[in-house]
C-alpha cells in the first residue's frame, strides 16, 4: 500500500477536471438515440403485448393488421425461432407458443406513422388458454409449482450457472463454508429474520429507444440507447442467425441506464421488425409506461437470514436463503442470484456459512441488472440483522461492525483472501460524520429522531474473462483521440478515460477527445458498461494504449536524438530529454515522423497505440460448496450513515443528513466520485422510501410517474457528506476500482436502522412509506 501511494501520479489523474461532455449536454447539442434523424423512409414500430400473465397462445391472427394501409410489416414469434439471453438462453424475441408476463411481446408492427402502427395493434387477434400463474418465488421454487419453462433443461447456459431442469429454478448457487449446522450451539445470540424487497424500476429519464435498419444483404445497423453495444451485437446477431461482424451497433449518449440498458431487452424487437422491411429504418420508442414494465425491472427478493455470534460479538455462523423473483425470463437475472451467493456473508468474516440463492421464474416482468446487481436487496435485510444481533448481545452496532468487518487478508465466504481494503476506515468516517452515539433532540414535539449505519461490499459480477480494449491516435495538431467501447451513462467514464489517457501519455487533459459515439464498427471492443468495472478494466486498456503510443513516440525521438528512451519523457505534449534538455512538440512528429539528418529519409509514422485488458485470474467455484481460489476480481467496500426524523402524526420519514465513505482504490476524478456517492445515496433513499412496482395478479398497477414516485429535489437530504478512502487496487489504473453502483447498496438498511433507532420498529421490507411506518407504529402502540 505504501508503495502504491508513493508511485508517481501524473496530472491530470486525481484531479477534478470538468466533464468532457458538459458543454454539449448544457447546450442541447448532445445527441441521444431518439435525436438521430433517419429521414423520410423511417417506419414506426409498436408492439402487441400479452394481456395475460401466463397462457398458451391458441390463435394469433395478424391478417387484418397486415391489410391496414400504411402497415409495412407485422412480425410474430413464428418468424424468429432463435433463442436469446446473456447467461441463459431462455427467451425468444417474440413469444412463440406461450406468454409469461403481462407485457410479453407477441407481435410487432412497422407502419408509416405511429398512429397507424397503434391502430394495427388493435386489429391483431389473440386467443389465449390461461395457465396457472406463479407470482411468488418461494412457492414457485417448490416441486409442486406450475412450470413456466418446461424446456429449461435444454436451454444453453454459461458454465457457472446451474439451472434445475423440471423446476422453476433457473439457477441455484450454494455456499458451504465451514460447518454452519454445528456452529449454532456455540452462539451466544442468534437472530432469524425474513425480509421482502419489492420489484422496482431503474427509471432512467430517457426511456429505451432503438432504431434498426437491415440492408438488402441482411447486414444490420442498430442505433440505440445502450450500455452494451457489443453484447447486443453478439446476442442479437446470434438470435438472428448472422455472424457478429454483419451487425453494427451505434450507441450515442445514454440518458441514464442504471443497468436497465445493459444486455438486450427491447432492442431485438426493433431489429426483428426491421428485418422484414429491408432497407427502411424502423424506430421503436418505449413509452414511459412500457419502460416501467417491459424493459427490465429490478428483481424482487424474499430473503431468510439466520446469523449468530459469541458473547464477545464475533460472528460465528450465517445461514441465508434467497428466493429471487426473476420474472418471466432470467437470462440476465441468473447471475444476480450467483452474485448474491458469493457475497452472501455481507462484508464480514464469518467462519461458517451456508447459503442458498435461487433464481425463480415467476409470471412477473423480466428481472434484470440494476445498479448494485442484487446487493442493495441483499444488504437491506442483512445489515438490519447485524444491528439486531449487536443489540442482542448488548454491543454498539458500529463496534460490532468494527470487530467483524472484512480486513485485508480476511477469509472470504468463498474461501479466498480479501485484498487490501479500507472498509475499517470507511466505518470510522461515516460514524464520525453522523456523530454516532450522540442523540439530538427532534425538530418538533411530534417527531422522533434516529441514526443508522450500514456497510456494503460488491464485486463486479461478470464472466471471468470480460475484456476491454482501447486505442490512442494523434492528429496533426498533437491532439489525442481515444477510442473506447465503454459508454458514458452519466457516470463520467469519458472524462475519466480522457484523464487517464492524458496522464499516461503526458498531454494536458484539454488535448484529449473521446471518439464517440460508440460504434461497434469503429470503436474497440468492450464487454458491457456494467458492474462498475470500467474505471478499472477499460481504464487499464486506455492506460495500456496510451503507454503503447508513448513508447512508439519515445522510440522515434530516442533514435533521432541518439539517446535512450529512458532519458525521455512527454510533458504537456512535448517530448523532453532529461539528458540533453532537447524538446520536440508531439505535433511535430506524431503523423509525419521525424526526418533523418541531411535529408536522408524519415523515421516513424502515424502513431496508433493499442491496449487491452482482461482479468485472467478468476477461477471457477465448486458447484456444491461455492469455494474456490478467486471468485471475483475485487470488492469495493463502504459505509453509509444517516440521520432521520419520523413524523409521529403521519409516519413520514425525513432524511435529514447522510454520510458516505467508500474505498475506491484511487479517485481518478474526486468530484466525479463524490457525484456518484451523492446520486447513489439519493437513488437508494428513493428506493427505501418511495419505490415499488405494485404488482397484483401480474399486473403493474402503477406504471407511470403519477403513481411510481421517485425522489425529487424537495426530497433530497439537506446535507450529504462524502469521504473518499483510497486503498489501491493492485491491478487497477493507479490503484482505481469502481464506485458507480456501490453508493446505493447500504442505503435501505441504513435508513431502516435509523427508523428503529428513532421509534423502535422494523418493517418487513422497503419501501418505508409513511403509511407503512405509521400503521406499524399504530400496531405497536407507539401512536394512538
Amino acid at each position: 500500500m505504501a508503495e502504491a501511494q508513493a508511485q508517481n501520479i501524473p496530472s491530470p489523474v486525481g484531479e477534478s477536471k470538468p466533464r468532457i461532455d458538459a458543454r454539449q449536454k448544457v447546450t442541447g447539442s448532445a445527441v441521444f438515440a431518439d435525436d438521430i434523424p433517419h429521414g423520410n423512409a423511417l417506419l414506426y414500430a409498436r408492439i402487441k403485448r400479452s394481456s395475460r400473465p401466463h397462457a398458451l397462445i391458441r390463435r394469433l391472427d395478424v391478417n387484418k393488421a397486415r391489410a391496414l394501409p400504411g402497415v409495412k410489416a407485422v412480425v410474430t414469434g413464428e418468424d424468429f425461432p432463435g433463442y436469446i439471453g446473456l447467461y441463459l438462453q431462455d427467451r425468444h424475441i417474440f413469444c412463440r407458443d406461450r406468454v409469461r408476463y403481462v407485457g410479453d411481446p407477441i407481435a410487432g408492427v412497422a407502419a408509416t406513422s405511429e398512429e397507424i402502427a397503434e391502430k394495427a395493434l388493435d386489429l391483431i387477434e389473440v386467443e389465449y388458454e390461461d395457465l396457472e400463474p406463479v407470482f411468488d418465488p418461494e412457492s414457485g421454487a417448490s416441486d409442486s409449482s406450475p412450470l413456466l419453462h418446461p424446456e429449461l433443461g435444454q436451454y444453453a447456459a454459461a458454465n457457472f450457472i446451474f439451472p434445475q431442469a423440471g423446476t422453476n429454478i433457473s439457477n441455484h448457487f450454494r455456499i458451504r463454508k465451514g460447518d454452519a449446522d454445528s456452529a449454532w450451539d456455540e452462539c451466544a445470540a442468534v437472530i432469524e429474520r425474513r425480509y421482502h424487497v419489492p420489484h422496482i424500476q431503474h427509471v432512467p429519464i430517457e426511456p429505451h429507444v432503438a432504431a434498426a435498419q437491415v440492408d438488402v444483404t441482411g447486414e444490420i445497423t442498430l442505433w440505440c440507447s445502450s450500455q452494451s453495444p457489443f453484447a447486443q451485437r453478439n446476442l442479437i446477431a446470434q438470435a438472428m442467425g448472422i455472424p457478429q461482424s454483419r451487425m453494427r451497433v451505434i450507441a450515442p449518449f445514454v440518458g441514464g441506464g442504471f443497468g436497465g440498458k445493459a444486455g438486450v431487452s427491447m432492442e431485438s424487437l426493433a431489429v426483428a421488425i426491421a428485418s422484414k422491411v429491408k432497407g427502411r429504418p424502423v424506430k421503436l420508442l418505449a413509452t414511459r409506461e412500457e419502460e416501467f414494465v417491459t424493459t427490465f425491472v429490478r428483481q424482487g427478493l424474499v430473503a431468510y437470514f439466520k446469523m449468530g455470534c459469541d458473547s464477545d460479538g464475533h460472528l460465528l455462523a450465517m445461514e441465508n436463503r434467497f428466493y429471487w423473483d426473476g420474472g418471466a425470463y432470467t437470462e440476465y437475472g441468473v447471475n444476480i442470484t450467483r452474485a448474491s451467493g458469493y457475497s452472501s456473508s455481507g462484508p464480514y468474516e464469518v467462519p461458517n456459512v451456508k447459503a442458498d440463492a435461487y433464481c425463480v421464474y415467476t409470471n412477473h416482468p423480466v428481472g434484470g441488472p440494476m445498479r448494485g446487481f442484487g446487493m442493495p436487496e441483499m444488504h437491506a435485510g442483512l445489515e438490519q440483522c447485524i444491528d439486531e444481533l449487536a443489540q442482542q448481545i448488548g454491543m454498539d452496532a458500529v463496534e460490532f461492525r468494527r470487530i467483524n468487518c472484512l480486513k485485508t487478508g480476511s477469509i472470504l465466504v468463498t474461501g479466498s483472501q480479501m485484498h487490501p481494503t479500507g472498509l475499517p476506515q470507511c466505518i470510522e468516517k461515516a460514524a464520525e460524520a453522523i456523530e454516532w452515539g450522540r442523540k439530538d433532540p427532534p425538530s418538533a414535539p411530534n417527531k422522533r429522531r434516529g441514526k443508522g449505519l450500514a456497510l456494503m461490499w460488491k464485486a463486479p459480477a461478470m464472466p471471468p474473462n470480460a475484456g476491454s480494449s482501447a486505442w490512442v491516435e494523434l492528429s496533426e495538431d498533437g491532439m489525442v483521440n481515444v477510442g473506447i467501447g465503454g459508454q458514458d451513462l452519466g457516470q463520467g467514464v469519458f472524462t475519466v478515460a480522457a484523464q487517464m489517457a492524458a496522464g499516461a501519455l503526458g498531454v494536458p487533459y484539454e488535448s484529449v477527445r473521446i471518439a464517440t459515439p460508440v460504434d461497434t464498427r469503429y470503436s474497440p471492443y468492450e464487454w458491457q458498461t456494467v458492474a462498475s468495472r470500467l474505471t478499472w478494466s477499460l481504464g487499464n486498456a486506455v492506460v495500456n494504449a496510451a503507454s503503447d503510443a508513448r513508447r512508439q513516440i519515445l522510440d522515434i525521438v530516442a533514435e533521432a536524438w541518439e539517446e535512450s528512451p529512458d532519458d525521455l519523457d512527454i510533458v504537456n505534449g512535448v517530448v523532453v530529454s532529461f539528458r540533453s534538455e532537447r524538446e520536440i512538440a508531439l505535433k511535430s512528429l506524431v503523423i509525419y515522423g521525424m526526418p533523418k539528418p541531411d535529408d536522408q529519409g524519415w523515421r516513424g509514422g502515424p502513431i496508433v497505440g493499442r491496449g487491452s485488458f482482461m482479468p485472467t485470474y478468476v477461477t471457477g467455484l465448486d458447484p456444491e460448496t461455492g469455494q474456490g481460489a478467486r471468485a471475483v476480481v475485487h470488492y469495493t467496500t463502504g459505509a453509509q450513515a444517516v440521520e432521520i426524523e419520523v413524523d409521529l402524526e403521519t409516519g413520514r420519514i425525513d432524511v435529514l443528513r447522510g454520510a458516505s465513505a467508500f474505498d475506491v482504490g484511487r479517485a481518478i476524478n474526486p468530484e466525479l466520485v463524490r457525484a456518484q456517492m451523492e446520486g447513489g445515496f439519493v437513488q437508494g433513499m428513493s428506493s427505501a422510501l418511495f419505490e415499488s412496482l405494485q404488482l397484483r395478479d401480474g399486473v403493474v398497477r402503477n406504471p407511470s410517474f403519477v403513481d411510481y414516485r421517485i425522489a425529487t429535489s424537495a426530497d433530497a437530504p439537506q446535507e450529504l457528506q462524502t469521504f473518499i478512502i483510497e486503498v489501491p487496487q493492485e491491478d487497477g489504473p493507479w490503484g482505481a476500482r469502481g464506485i458507480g453502483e456501490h453508493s446505493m447498496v447500504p442505503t435501505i438498511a441504513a435508513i431502516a436502522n435509523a427508523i428503529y433507532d428513532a421509534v423502535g420498529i422494523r418493517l418487513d421490507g422497503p419501501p418505508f412509506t409513511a403509511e407503512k411506518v405509521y400503521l406499524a407504529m399504530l400496531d405497536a402502540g407507539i401512536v394512538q
Partner: protein
Amino acid sequence: MAIDTHPSLPEFEYIRPATLSEASEFLANHATEARPFLGGTDVFVRMRDGALAPRFLVDVKHLDGTGDLHFDPRSGLIIGAAVNMNRVIASPDVQAHYPLLAQACRTVASYQLRTRATIVGNLCNASPAGDTIGACLAFDAHLHIHGVSGPREEPLSSFFLGPGRTVLKPGDIVTAIQFPLPPAGCTGVYLKLGRNRLSDLSIVGVTALGGPDAACPSGYRFRLALASVAPVPFVPAAAEAYLAGNALSTETIHQAACLAAEACTPIDDVRGGARYRKQMVRNLSERALLTIWKTLAAQPAA
C-alpha cells in the same frame, strides 16, 4: 395508466370559438364528441391513456372574461377560468385576502404544470384529490357558467356529483369562479399528505379555515374540507357543527377531528389504504385546527 398507453395524443379536431355563445352552441351540438379544455393537464393525460377520445377539443381559454383576475373590496374575488395557478399564487390580492387559496394552488404538481393548470379546470375535473377544491368550498365560492341559454351562477357546494362528474350540461362552460369576501379575521391552512414532500397527488388533503364569529356559541366558525377520502372533496358538516357549538379546547378539536375522520369514506388504492387515510384525516384535521386556533389566539381581539 397502463402499458398500452398511447405514445402520443390520438387524433382530434381543435376548435377555437370566437365567442362564448359560439362555444356553448358547438359543445351542445356535439354533446358526446366535444370536450372543452383549458390547460389540458388532465384531459391530455386521459386521452393518451385511452380513457377519453373526443373528436373535438374546444379551447375555451380565450373567451370573454376567462383571463381576468379581479378583487373588489366590496364583493370579493373573481378568477377567470383561464387564469393559471401561478398567476393566482403570485396575485397580491390573493396573497392578502385568500392566502389559503394560494397555498392550495402551490401544492399542485410543479411550477411548469401550474403554468397550464387552472382552478376552474381542477374543479371541472371533479377529482377526489383536487387540491384547490377544499379552499373553494371553504370560502363558499360559486361558479359563473355560460350555457346554451346564456350565463348563470351556481354554488360550488352542489356542483359535484361524483368522481369526474358535475352538474354541468352539454354546452356549459365555467367561465369564472367567484369568492365572497373572506370572513373577517379568518385564517386557513391546507395540509396535504403526499408520498413525496411536494408535487405528488394527495393521499389525504385537509383544508381548514377559521375565524371569530359571534353567532357561534364557541365564538368561532370553522370550515373543513377533505380530499382523497371520498368520491369527491367534501365538507364534514358534523365536525364543523361540533366546532361551532363547543368552547374551543384541545379536546374539542380532537373530537371534531374524529368526527371528520368518521365522515369520510376512503378506498384502498395505489396511493394509500383506507385505514391509513382515516387516521390521517383525524391527525391532519387536528393539526390544521390547532394551527388555526393558535394563529387566531395570537391575533389582537377585534
